[in-house]
């Protein structure tokens, strides 16, 4: 009898733990949308999403977040263009070309990268990348390109980790068959193994995109944060995440609601990215 009650109690604890994350995500969704949707309806969805002016201090104020949506998208594309090729090649190297001695140092170093707080990346960007970009391309050095380079570095551990695992998961018979047919080691890896690991690699890219679009503290220091339509690769930009963090401290009333509504839009972006991730992953498993 006593054993049974303990059993039931522990079962409850386990279920509660499992429900915890679900409950928090539901609560987060509720508060973001409850705070943001009334503002969107009041201000007009079209004005909000497609407005090109973000001027909260003006009377009357304008709250168009198209510049920030585009900013987030451009910076993410830039980060993907820089981080993904490097990441996939590194993962291939680690899984198929690297000797054990080097691997012993490389792998922990890459894992360490994912543990570095993003504000530290931001200061690195501000003190190292920004002056270099200013030297070469003029202006303030804070630009879409700078943010892309920094984010490209930041998504490396995500891309490398998952890609490497999926490359290692390709059955050895693929490789052996390719070698047996006379292909070289390099050719077997690039033409047989990498294509076979495609869905895993693609998933890693999507996760990397999710990380890039949600990154805040590093971007805020190197992007310039001008709330106007993006004007070029070497001009400043403001993303949705930085817009929220930047102005939340002082915002009141409608301004505050507009920032929460920005968070809601960002949330929808993340939901879309995660859905695509799940679809790609499921397709890979079948």
């Amino acid at each position, binding site marked *: 009898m006593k054993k049974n009650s303990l059993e039931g109690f522990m079962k409850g604890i386990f279920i509660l733990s499992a429900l915890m994350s679900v409950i928090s995500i539901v609560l987060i969704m509720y508060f973001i949308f409850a705070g943001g949707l009334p503002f969107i309806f009041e201000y007009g969805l079209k004005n909000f999403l497609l407005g090109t002016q973000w001027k909260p*201090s003006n009377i009357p104020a304008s709250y168009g977040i198209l510049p920030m949506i585009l900013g987030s998208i451009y910076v993410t594309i830039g980060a993907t263009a820089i981080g993904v090729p490097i990441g996939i090649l590194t993962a291939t190297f680690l899984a198929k070309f690297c000797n054990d001695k080097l691997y012993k140092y490389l792998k922990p170093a890459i894992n360490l990268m994912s543990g570095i707080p993003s504000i530290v990346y931001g200061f690195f960007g501000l003190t190292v990348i920004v002056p270099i970009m200013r030297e070469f391309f003029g*202006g303030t050095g804070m630009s879409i390109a700078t943010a892309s380079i920094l984010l490209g570095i930041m998504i490396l551990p995500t891309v490398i980790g998952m890609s490497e695992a999926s490359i290692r998961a390709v059955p050895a018979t693929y490789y052996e068959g390719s070698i047996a047919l006379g292909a070289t080691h390099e050719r077997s890896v690039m033409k047989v193994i990498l294509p076979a690991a495609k869905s895993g690699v693609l998933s890693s890219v999507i996760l990397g995109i999710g990380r890039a679009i949600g990154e805040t503290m590093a971007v805020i220091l190197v992007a310039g*944060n*001008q709330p106007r339509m993006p004007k070029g690769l070497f001009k*400043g930009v*403001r993303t949705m995440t930085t817009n929220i963090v*930047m*102005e939340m401290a002082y915002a*009141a009333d409608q301004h505050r609601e507009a920032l929460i509504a920005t968070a809601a839009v960002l949330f929808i972006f993340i939901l879309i990215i995660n859905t695509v991730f799940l679809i790609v992953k499921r397709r890979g498993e079948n």
Partner: protein
Amino acid sequence: MKKTISLILVAIMVAIFAVGCSAEEQSDFDTSEIINLVSREDGSGTRGAFVEIVGILEKDADGNEVDRTYEEAVIQNGTDAVLTTVAGDEYAIGYISLGSLNDTVKAVSVGGAQATAANVQDSSYAIARPFNIAYKGELSSVGADFLNFILSSEGQAIAEEEGYVQVGEPVAYEGSAEGSLVVAGSTSVTPLMEKLSEAYQKLNSGVSIEIQSTGSSAGMQSAIEGTADIGMASRELKDSELAELTGQVIAMDGIAVIVNKENPVEDLTIDQIKSIFVGQSTEWTVAE
């Protein structure tokens, strides 16, 4: 083997020195360069005061207000971030609270007056804002005593020590009180208020003061609603707030216009600052 290592080390050291020298030689300031503006985010009290005093904020008869800060301006959301950006960029210009000024950057004179506490006090330095407190109706006895302390010579000495400018002609503080107070409002006034309450509580051990750093507008709102005894604002009080509250200036704070130390510019007029910050003058030749 040892010899090669030491040779390499020497080579590295020489290289470092060489780089150091060449960097120093490059310090020539090119006035045809683009001005890199650094501004604060919308909603910041410092930005609000700066755009209003300098005339970047344009008001029309219908009550519409347009902040014309140049859209290419880099936006940083804190005094420290503005300082770091300007300290690291030869061609940058920004603005910060005078109390936070340090020697990593250079403050320019405005219309001939240097950015110092004394010049703010005699109004020759034009870009200054009041630190206000406001309360509804009559203050409680402890509140009134605390206000006396803030305006006394002891309280104003603290304000001056912190880099702000004292107001009025303070007299020595004498008094005592017991009770508790809630003070809420501007994040810019909060550091000063913390020092003041610390010193006040040393004199009156029976008093407890809770300080909430919520922003100027939120602080005024709390004072009107009665959730705070005293509200703090780092700007002039609005008419709608003055209708409900009694205001009192407790100190003045100058806003320093800062440039990089390499920048030879020493003096700008208000009109020049305005034309730089609205984007009419985009090159440093404006300051010649």
